[in-house]
């Protein structure tokens, strides 16, 4: 390890949480940067203290008195031309102690490092272990900022629970998702592969299929206009979810009708449509006419969406395969309600199939997640209940959500708080930042403040996937074909 400094004493440090050190390494050989990881070798203790640089202060006695600087420089000469001022420059860094890395694992630091202890630049191997990276089988999403270390996230820690990717538009969310997809699709069988379903709201991922890369064969794109729900697989409660104004009496009657149809048709292998349900209701002599009319009115409205049919398309059981990506292109749809219905149906089906272990472990990527799990009233949030259900219970059945949003403040608190890992990219809106601070457990004030300063392609990974929040420069994508058009180009093309 490269020694870079020595721990010094200030009025309040070193203490178990933080310490200061002076850089002893020549600045020509080495430049300390904020958020770098450092190591203090404590001879009397059983391990190495890992810390992160939180602040860097330069001092110089010749420039410490404003009046002296002004007085000398008024003479017409600079202080640097009178004195060897540069030789008095010292760099003092403030570091936050993250923990002590021992043979038994990472422990919380309960005593301070000692003044005079040597400070080293963290060694890749040690840091990788300390941060909980999986260099053998992890998903390679980028490089650790300021360190030549690949950020490879362990699949289980990363995606057994849920993930949120949060950033303003243009910060690199889609790029990051593409990188993630490449990693998931490139996994070998022996590494453990999962299935991936992506709801592509703007149709920007369908280009992945056309990149000419090897992973093409593992990708299937289905336009939402072809989607059909298997009506017989939809429960009364789900219908009520699609039509939230349905009354309890109507729901009870629908439940009875669907139960009868299940026994008479589904059990015999016969499917049915919404028209069949409407007919069954109409023929029900026991049901009140007003209830019949209301129920059929609701069902007629659903039928108009043309989403309900005899057979499910795509067949989710067949299309959900290990190492495969199914992209559901919602860009043809303008109706948010219909998009929410598709998401709701698909997630309900996937959850049901996973519970029965009829499909492999699956991750569902939801672009513009705030549209599908908004913190608004239920009639505007058809897909929220199933998203919340999966967010709460999906971990047990190995179905995980990857929620992508540029307005986290509009996202359901329940959903976001269940996202144990977050990839946070540049965010400027103070309400969004405050919301992230409240819903994200692993993020401290310093890290939160740094979110506004992130550049394009830079991210903070926080939560279950890593032992400490890390800054990552997202790696370059292998699939290059996801072109983003600029306004000027589109305007020129239109005007041709």
């Amino acid at each position: 390890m490269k020694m870079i400094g020595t721990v010094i004493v200030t009025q309040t440090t070193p203490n178990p949480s933080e310490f200061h050190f002076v850089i002893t390494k020549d600045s020509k050989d080495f430049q300390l940067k904020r958020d770098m990881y450092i190591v203090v070798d404590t001879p009397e203790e059983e391990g190495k203290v890992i810390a992160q640089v939180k602040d860097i202060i330069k001092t110089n006695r010749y420039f410490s008195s404003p009046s002296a600087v002004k007085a000398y420089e008024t003479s017409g000469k600079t202080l640097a031309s009178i004195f060897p001022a540069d030789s008095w420059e010292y760099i003092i860094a403030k570091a936050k102690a993250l923990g002590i890395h021992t043979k038994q694992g990472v422990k919380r630091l309960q005593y301070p490092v000692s003044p005079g202890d040597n400070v080293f630049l963290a060694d890749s191997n040690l840091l990788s272990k300390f941060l909980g990276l999986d260099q053998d089988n992890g998903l390679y999403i980028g490089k650790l900022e300021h360190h030549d270390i690949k950020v490879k996230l362990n699949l289980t820690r990363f995606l057994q629970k849920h993930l949120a990717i949060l950033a303003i538009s243009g910060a690199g969310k889609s790029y990051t998702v593409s990188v993630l997809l490449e990693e998931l699709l490139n996994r070998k069988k022996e590494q453990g592969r999962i299935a991936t379903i992506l709801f592509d709201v703007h149709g920007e991922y369908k280009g992945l299929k056309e990149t000419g890369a090897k992973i093409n064969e593992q990708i299937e794109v289905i336009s939402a206009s072809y989607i059909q729900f298997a009506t017989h697989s939809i429960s009364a409660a789900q219908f009520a979810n699609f039509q939230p104004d349905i009354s309890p009496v109507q729901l009870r009657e629908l439940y009875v009708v669907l139960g009868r149809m299940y026994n008479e048709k589904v059990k015999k292998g016969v499917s049915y449509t919404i028209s069949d349900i409407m007919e069954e209701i109409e023929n029900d002599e026991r049901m009140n006419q007003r209830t019949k009319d209301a129920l059929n009115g609701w069902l007629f409205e659903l039928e108009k969406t043309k989403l309900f049919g005899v057979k499910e398309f795509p067949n989710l059981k067949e299309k959900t395969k290990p190492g495969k990506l199914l992209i559901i292109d919602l860009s043809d749809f303008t109706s948010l309600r219909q998009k929410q219905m598709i998401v709701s149906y698909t997630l309900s089906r996937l959850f049901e199939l996973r519970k029965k272990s009829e499909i492999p472990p699956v991750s569902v990527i939801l672009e513009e997640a705030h549209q599908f799990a908004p913190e608004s009233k239920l009639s505007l949030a058809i897909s929220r209940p199933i998203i919340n259900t999966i967010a709460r219970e999906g971990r047990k059945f190995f179905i995980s959500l990857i929620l992508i949003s540029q307005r986290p403040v509009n996202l359901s608190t329940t959903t976001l708080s269940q996202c144990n890992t977050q990839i946070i990219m540049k965010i400027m809106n103070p309400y969004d930042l405050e919301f992230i601070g409240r819903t994200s457990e692993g993020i401290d004030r310093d890290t939160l403040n740094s979110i506004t300063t992130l550049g394009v392609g830079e991210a903070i990974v926080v939560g279950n996937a890593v032992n400490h929040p890390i800054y990552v420069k997202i790696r370059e994508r292998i699939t290059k074909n996801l072109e983003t058009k600029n306004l000027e180009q589109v305007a020129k093309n239109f005007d041709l």
Partner: protein
Amino acid sequence: MSEKKNLEQAISNIIKVIKEYNKHRKLFQDLFRKVKYQLDPSIFPEAFQFNTKDTSFIIRVPQSSTTGLKYAGVDGGIIHRSMNFFDVALIRAVGVLFYHNKDEKPKVKYFPEKNPFPDILTSVEPLAQNEIDYLIALWRIQKEIRCAIDLLENDSPDILILDGSVLPVIDVKSIQGNEFLFSQYLRLKALYRRLYTLSRKKRCLLCGVIKDSRSAILTRKLSLILPHLSKRPEFKELLDIDYRPIIKQLRDTDLLFNVLDINERTFESHLSKFNEYEKDLEDFDIHFFYLKTAEYDTPLRVEFPVLFSDSTNLAQTISSLICSISTFHPEYGLPSVIIEADARAKIREDDADILIDEISSRIGYSSFSLQKRRARNPWS
């Protein structure tokens, strides 16, 4: 109430004395300022016991450039602790050498190095407090002179500036009874002799700058010529007062603060007599002048041994060089090399504490018990 009254009275008295002193000081400052270029000290050789080459009381210093100049400064730092059984001092001296090439930042060399580890000197001699003070002073000056010698042996500056006198300024009478202290003094004298010889050999201008000098050597000499000056119209006011007790109060720098302007010096004078213990240095002729390097700072007292017989005007050359490296700050007119050397040589109080703690832990005492009783006062 009476206590408050007494305090008021005491403060009033102090203010009265200060005001009186300032009034007298201003009187003399104004008088000498009026005649500073006309007053010719060379016509009073007996008063000054010296045939000065300068023909006016105050001389303007010519401007000189630092381009191509190699100039050096030496300063020392010391921390002293008096413990129950022994005295310990941390002493170090640093020499710095600047070389300027046009207006570029100075190229710097340090002697012996940039941050030398301090010498740790201890004494278990049963010395009285004033003797301890002399011993520490002797050690410090020895260290500085050794550092200056080291610098000259390893490089060839055009001018070498010491922080302090170019003579071993020790009250020899107070230490002559103590064999140990006197031997240290003799050693110091030998070091000075070696420094002078080496400076002469290297053709290096050697000088010492004394900041905040409390000397009254010049005012005492001026008091001798005042009877002659009182005949001049400018000094007419003096006839109305008894000026002799007043001028006895004045230190040289107090008088000169408003007499000298920036880049001006007093006429070249010499240190009147060596004491009987310094006779063996007498072959080195030590001269001095006061030099104003900052508008709102007291003049520097500059001493230098006249080492080169062929030199035409050493005082003018030295003052010009010192001004070129000192006149950057209106309130702080020290040579840049001395500022840098002082900063490098300074020893922090903490360093002495660490040393004492280490010593006490190794001998099994608490550092508290090693301290003298007055330092152990739990309420101070």
